[in-house]
């Protein structure tokens, strides 16, 4: 098995084919230009070598036409590469509506993953075929990077903020997961597997493995334990705004600005509450820095999302 010489990686995501097509385009353009340059150099170097019949070089003047040609033709081709690559990059950055969410916490040197339904995994991720999956990722320490070559996607996981990445798997199987941002001594061991399953198998796996409580339920317990509900009352009569149905919606801030209440805003409001205060409220919330883990905060976010969907845990 070791003697095989692999040349091209497996492909198991919807976006993978698009990335590969662009890659082949780049390969083709590069091959043509490399061949052109190498052939010219070889031909000229041999044709005009110094020999008795060619002892004297002949000076030739420069040519504006040539200079413009070999500046503008490559530039035009590069603009094709640029727009094609940028278009695909924007698609990579925008998850489709209705993507299932899975939460990821990276630390030296492991991947901790939790499905909203409850199952937790370490260095393994089970996902179904045919459904867009969005990962919401946080780091406990240094920068890591979530990389699944078969999906042609990669995203750094940066401490102090959430990053996210999405994919839709197309082929059942087992694919390598790497940490691709150097993160210390055991960086090379921060690897794992993504198991892509048929939807029915995935449902079985979910229900079979779900021994613990769901993320929203865990989040609700934490929400109560930390006393968040004392101020953030559902009816809006507390000292803080009601959080029901807030996630994913725009909120009006003090001073008239608006902000999308996404995961990043929740995170900021928990750790640095005074940064952006909702209109009509005072800066009375203390910071929860050091009182809540990355995983705990993600559970609270999952809980807040469940409120929004009206599905009580």
């Amino acid at each position, binding site marked *: 098995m070791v003697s095989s010489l692999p040349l091209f990686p497996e492909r198991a995501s919807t976006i993978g084919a698009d990335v590969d097509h662009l*890659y082949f385009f780049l390969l083709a353009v590069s091959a043509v230009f490399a061949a052109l340059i190498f052939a010219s150099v070889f031909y000229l170097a041999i044709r005009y070598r110094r020999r008795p019949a060619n002892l004297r070089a002949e000076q030739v003047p420069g040519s504006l036409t040539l200079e413009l040609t*070999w500046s503008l033709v490559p530039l035009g081709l590069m603009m094709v590469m640029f727009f094609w690559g940028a278009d695909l990059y924007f698609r990579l950055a925008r998850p489709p509506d209705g993507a299932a969410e899975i939460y990821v916490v990276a630390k030296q040197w492991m991947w901790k993953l939790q499905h909203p339904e409850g199952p937790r995994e370490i260095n393994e991720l089970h996902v179904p075929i045919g459904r867009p999956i969005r990962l919401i990722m946080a780091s406990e320490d240094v920068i890591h990077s979530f990389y699944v070559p078969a999906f042609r996607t990669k995203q750094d996981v940066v401490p102090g903020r959430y990053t996210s990445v999405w994919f839709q798997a197309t082929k059942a199987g087992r694919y390598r997961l790497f940490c691709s*941002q150097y993160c210390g001594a055991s960086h090379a061991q921060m690897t794992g597997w993504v198991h892509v399953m048929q939807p029915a198998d995935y449902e079985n796996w979910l229900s079979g493995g779900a021994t613990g409580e769901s993320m929203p339920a865990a989040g609700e317990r934490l929400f109560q334990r930390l006393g968040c509900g004392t101020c953030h009352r559902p009816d809006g009569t507390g000292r803080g705004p009601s959080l029901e149905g807030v996630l994913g919606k725009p909120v009006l801030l003090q001073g008239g600005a608006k902000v999308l209440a996404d995961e990043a805003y929740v995170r900021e409001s928990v750790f640095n509450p005074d940064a952006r205060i909702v209109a009509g409220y005072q800066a009375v919330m203390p910071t929860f820095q050091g009182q809540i883990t990355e995983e705990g905060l993600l559970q609270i976010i999952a809980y807040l999302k469940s409120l929004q969907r009206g599905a009580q845990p």
Partner: protein
Amino acid sequence: MSTTLLEPGQEAGRNYLNADYSIRSWLLTTDHKRIAILYLVSITFLFVVGGASAGLMRLNLMTPQGALTSAETYNKLFTMHGLIMIFFFLIPSIPAVLGNFLVPMMIGARDVAFPRLNLLSWYLFIAGSLLAMVSALTGGVDTGWTFYTPYSTTYSNSYVVMMAVGVFIAGFSSILTGMNFIVTIHTMRAPGLTWFRLPLFLWSLYATSAIFILGTPVLAISILLLGLERIFGVGIFDPKLGGDPLLFQHLFWFYSHPAVYVMILPGMGVISEVIPCFARKRIFGYNFVAFSSVAIALIGFLVWGHHMFVSGQSVYAGMVFSFLSFLVAVPSAIKVFNWTATLYKGAITYHTPMLYAFGFLGLFTIGGLTGLFLATLAVDVHVHDTYFVIAHFHYIMVGGAMMAYLGAIHFWWPKISGRLYPDAWARLSAVVIFLGFNLTFFPQFILGYLGMPRRYHAYPPEFQVLHVMSTAGSSILGVGYLIPLVYLLWSLRYGRAAGPNPWGAKGLEWQTPSPPPTENFERTPVVTEEAYAYTGEEASVDA
């Protein structure tokens, strides 16, 4: 200023090498040529250290589980390899060795504008590299040459600060050298040597010097902030202290991407000297080659964010940086086409420097084209931080800059040492280096697209075949680098005397004896023609 006449009584055969043999005369010299030699000796030693650490890495990667070293040792090896090769070898290589030797000679001056500052540059460089070596020997650094935060400021248990201070100090050596070159080229050109008669090597060094002066202070600032956070816990980059880790990446790459051009621009200058000489042709499109150096230096400052496409920076920022990265590729393409066109209707000989120039053309073309893959946003997402990136920048920095450096050493060695080296051995080693290089790094492109991440001391077994090929190539490359070391040293004693102009080359540096007298020129030359004014009828190369 530099009207230098030999004293009537001065004996013939007196040159900068035999003017004084004492150690003191070397360590306190202000002669730009002797300072060049000091740099040559120091960076050759550092190259051997950096190369040996790469050799150990490649040996370790023979087997998937890591054949040789622990993970910690491996991490220190790649950090040391990167830091030494970039900051203590490639950045000073052509500018500090050949630039120092040639800038005054090419403009007909007696020395650089600030000779004592020039010596100070070397001492700063030595102080910086000593600190780096001490840091490496007493425990090493495991952050990677990129020092990414918060790993480097909070989590790494290695000698980060000492290494960073070494880089910080060496940076000032670059700044002083850059300033010296700019002032020298502005104020000390011989009569008649207008800007558009300058050898293109000087245009490229001028652009390089501008990057030294504008970019290196930002590196110094980044290192200072890094030290503040690591030593005093001032929150700048670590989010736990209220900092932003991406801020470091922006600061770091604002210097370190232009630093890539610091490494390749002087190499491009060398190629612009070598090809006209051995084709006996004026360079095709002088103005385009000259201004493309300036364009690279300018646009090169605006592309740093292409190192951060998957870092979490805004997608719109990514788009702008991608666009600008494509723009900076155009002037490089212009240069390659003009060098190729220079061969047309030439009378070409294949002496060693020309073989290196051919090698440069091929490898730099591959390095440049694969750079387009990395500038393309969606493709970069897949290959970022994989061996594809490693292969790409080694094609530029080793295939490009290192080939050019060796080409330059072989081109100007007769001038520097006064001796000819054995051309057959030199051609052989050029071919060995070319083959070894390709075997080492071409498989890494494939590895990268397969998804092999960089900085892994162990790896999945399916990647082994390509890793073994790469390791095999690196041993050939290592042998290729040893051969010139032997015959160049040999030539110092046994080589034939070179005479002032063994290649029949144009340029002021060839109009003075080899090795040149301390004053460079008996009388200040007057320039009456353009650079590369080959008529095509020069005598054949005499080496």
